[in-house]
């Protein structure tokens, strides 16, 4: 019998339907894999084996009675940012110590309603703030990928590092993730997986601990484009509990796969060619252009003139919202409380001990840019920049561009404890340079593996689409995937 964990969601779905094995067997295979690997990779912060087996058995019963959901019996990992009823939910933070909500996020509830099985909660940067998964209170996640001939631990990217690593290492069939500035797409690119951040409003944010409300969006990380399409279909929904969610039908994304890109116009933005960008990234980009051209797409050079302002503006808007969103973690109601002589000292002690350095940095930046006398100069201007970035995209889409192709990240995965980045947070922030524009404009973006660098590490390309045109992204990413092939790390762990 083949290792059940090597199957994609689509494959497992067919084999479960053929009754080759049960959901319980599939789940047990994953639980065993997690047991063997998590010590080395630290992808899970909590596993829920009993619940997983219960859910798997229930799935088998449903199948026996003829009720089969779209994800029937598929074992998934859940980013720790999603509230899961009665289960560890701490957003990778110390401040939510012991927090187990009595509610289930809409996205995960949708998955369970479609028959999926929860394996546990996945590690992440604290409150989704980070690009390396090193800001987690639960320690860094280790990338299943290593440079050829090296045993140096690399980061899986962030903030959805646990999701990406678990998918790449076959510790779940697929995972939920969230993306505020690149937190799905950058770790997907670093781990040879597929990650899509859908259009803002496509998935409900209800039950997802907020980082930056106007930018946060849930999406899947999966092994291939088809699995990502299957997962997003189940995750997406309008939700009366989130008034920023959008009421439009969720298409059958999987049906978009295999469609031709012939005659489509793919925009190549000049501004994404950055100074000092590694040659390998440029080569990869050109390769992607060539593949799409070969498939019949028209390649069009385009300009998105306000791109260079996106990252600075993002690092005003996101921290501003975060500073307010994280005010609720005050030691009064739930989670960590560090006593003090009075209420103010209790707040100070709790937040000093409960938040890590990166979260504190962003809360301080956010508090600063919203304060009296600075609001106009920072927050208001950043919002204006945001409008201009959005307009850039509207203009090119209005001019007939169907999707935009860019690199996903400016480099491959780097080492855990990178000294340069530790010394200069802005260097870490630059990881999001190609991805933040998409969040600022509320557009969908997908990262798809496109090749390996000279050291044998995966690199990804990003496709950016029109609002609610995820189907074009899946179709186009699928063409790249067909041309590039799939990439899996050599197993060195467990």
């Amino acid at each position, binding site marked *: 019998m083949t290792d059940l964990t090597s199957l994609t969601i689509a494959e497992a779905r067919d084999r479960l339907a053929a009754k080759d094995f049960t959901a319980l067997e599939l789940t047990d295979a994953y639980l065993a894999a997690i047991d063997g690997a998590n010590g080395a990779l630290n992808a899970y912060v909590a596993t829920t084996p009993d619940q997983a087996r219960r859910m798997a058995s229930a799935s088998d019963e449903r199948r026996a009675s003829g009720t089969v959901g779209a994800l029937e019996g598929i074992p998934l990992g859940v980013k720790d940012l*999603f*509230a899961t009823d009665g289960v560890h*939910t701490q*957003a990778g933070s110390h401040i*939510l110590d012991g*927090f187990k*909500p009595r*509610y289930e*996020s809409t996205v995960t509830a949708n998955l369970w309603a479609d028959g999926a099985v929860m394996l546990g909660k996945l590690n992440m940067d604290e409150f989704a703030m980070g690009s390396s998964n090193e800001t987690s209170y639960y320690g860094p996640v280790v990338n299943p990928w290593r440079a050829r001939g090296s045993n140096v631990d690399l980061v899986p990217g962030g903030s959805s590092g646990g999701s990406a690593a678990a998918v790449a290492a076959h510790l779940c069939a697929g995972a939920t993730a969230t993306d505020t500035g690149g937190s799905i797409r950058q770790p997907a690119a670093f781990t040879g997986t597929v990650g899509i951040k859908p259009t803002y409003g496509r998935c409900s*944010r*209800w*039950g*997802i*601990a*907020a980082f*930056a*409300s*106007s930018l946060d969006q849930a999406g899947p990380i999966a092994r291939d484009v088809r699995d990502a399409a299957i997962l997003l279909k189940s995750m997406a929904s309008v939700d*009366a*509990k*989130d*008034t*920023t969610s959008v009421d439009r039908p969720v298409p059958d994304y999987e049906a978009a796969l295999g469609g031709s890109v012939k005659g489509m116009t793919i925009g190549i933005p000049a501004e994404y060619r950055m100074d000092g960008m590694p040659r390998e990234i440029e080569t990869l980009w050109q390769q992607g252009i060539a593949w799409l051209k070969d498939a019949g797409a028209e390649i069009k050079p385009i300009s998105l003139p306000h791109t260079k302002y996106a990252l600075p503006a993002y690092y005003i808007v996101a921290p*501003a*919202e975060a*500073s*307010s969103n*994280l*005010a*609720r973690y*005050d030691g*009064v*109601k*739930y989670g960590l409380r560090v006593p003090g002589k009075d*209420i103010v000292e209790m*707040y100070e002690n709790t937040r000093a001990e409960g938040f890590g350095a990166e979260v504190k940095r962003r809360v301080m930046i956010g*508090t600063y840019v*919203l*304060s*009296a006398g600075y*609001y106009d100069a920072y*927050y208001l201007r950043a919002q204006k920049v945001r409008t201009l970035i959005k307009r850039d995209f509207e203009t090119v889409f209005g001019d007939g561009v169907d999707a935009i192709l860019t690199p996903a990240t400016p480099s491959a995965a780097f080492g855990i404890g990178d000294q340069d980045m530790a010394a200069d947070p802005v260097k870490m922030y630059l990881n999001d340079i190609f991805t933040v524009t998409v969040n600022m404009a509320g557009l969908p973006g997908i990262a798809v593996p496109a090749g390996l660098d000279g050291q044998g590490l995966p690199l990804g390309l990003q496709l950016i689409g029109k609002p609610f045109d995820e189907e074009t992204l899946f179709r186009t990413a699928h063409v790249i995937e067909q041309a590039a092939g799939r990439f899996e790390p050599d197993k060195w762990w467990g």
Partner: protein
Amino acid sequence: MTLVDTRTPDPKRLIAGATGDWEIIIGMEVHAQVTSQSKLFSGASTSFGAEPNANVSLVDAAMPGMLPVINQECVRQAVRTGLGLKAEINKKSVFDRKNYFYPDLPQGYQISQFKQPIVGEGTVQVAVGPDKKGEYEEVEVGIERLHLEQDAGKSMHDQHPTMSYVDLNRSGVALMEIVSKPDMRSADEAKAYLTKLRQILRYLGTCDGNMDEGSMRADVNVSVRRPGADFGTRCEIKNVNSIRFVGQAIEYEARRQIAILEDGGSIDQETRLFDPGKGETRSMRSKEEAHDYRYFPDPDLLPLEFDDAFIEELAAGLPELPDDKRSRFMAEGLTAYDASVLVSEKAIADYFEQVVEGRDAKTAANWVINDLLGALNKAGQTIDETPVSPDQLGAIIDLIKEGTISGKIAKELFEIVWSEGGDPARVVEERGMKQVTDTGAIEAEVDAVIAANPDKVEQAREKPNLAGWFVGQVMKATGGKANPQAVQALVRQKLGIED
């Protein structure tokens, strides 16, 4: 907000200081709890008096990942109120976050409206008075804006030796903050404004106006100046929870500021608290200690937008407001005083309207104001608790009009109906309270009284007013049941008094 002076200094409102006259400038921010079943952004109940933390949803407790969803009924109530204040309704408004830390503020921010409120400028006509002649002075107070916001919870410091408890029942309840322009010039005007505002809200059914339950609270801004000079530095007196206290707080605060200024000092802009026990205000925090609330648009909520049809529908459903009702009552023959008393509470006006249906307005007003309200007041009851229904009171009035009972008997009848209930006509029947209209019977009594009092008869011929004494004697002899008009006529006739 630019402050505009809309008033000309009025000598009778000035306060005399040691160094000359002073004028008080007052503006008010009133927090009025919206009458609604559920909270502004959650489905939790708003019922008053529930067990602590019984009415708390996940949203109200600011659990991670919770999102606000606007309660449409609260939006309708705010628009209704805006219409009642003759104010501009903003078809697009924005919710902002007001950030500060406090244990009874679970989110760490209050969702409010800062730059773009749901309601803009409006006006309230305030009647100050009545004076000794029963007359009112009309004053117009401008409304700056009305916005929707969340209430906070309640910290309880008396439940545990070292800890404080927090009750989140109020957390997230919808409030309307109604901001006036600095248009009031005396404590009486401020009290009249608050009274009028409460009356309008109650008519609209958008706030119950129960200040003792905290449904309505006022922040009062007070400054003083030399008449006609520029506005002085103001102090804000927070959370005053009765109309009487508003008056006391203003009187105290104005005198405090005048004393400082007359001593050559200057006023520090600050937030103060009114202590009802001591009748004084004291400093709470200075301008320097004021919070930086870091307002910004709440990214969890889309701008609130609606169209003209929405406003028109609400406008069409508005009840008659007190000013209109008062004008109508006056047009129907009531005095300004009577009309004002009757419209003071919607329930009283409703009661009156039932009584007056098909009856004389003045008579109905007298009975409602003097007899019914008088009795209620004496019994410490409200109009909602009245033991005499409008139908019963109407029947009493009808019995007088028909000549079945006299006015005096009617008062007795009212007392019987008040304490024992029953159909007034039947009570009159059963207890033999019917007026004697049989002229023969009355004539016999008149003759008897005249015969027994020859000296008075003599005097009455000199002084016709004394006929009243004979009428009184006859009424007494007949137990009040004789028709007074008939008695009057017979007495005058027999005494030879000419009309």
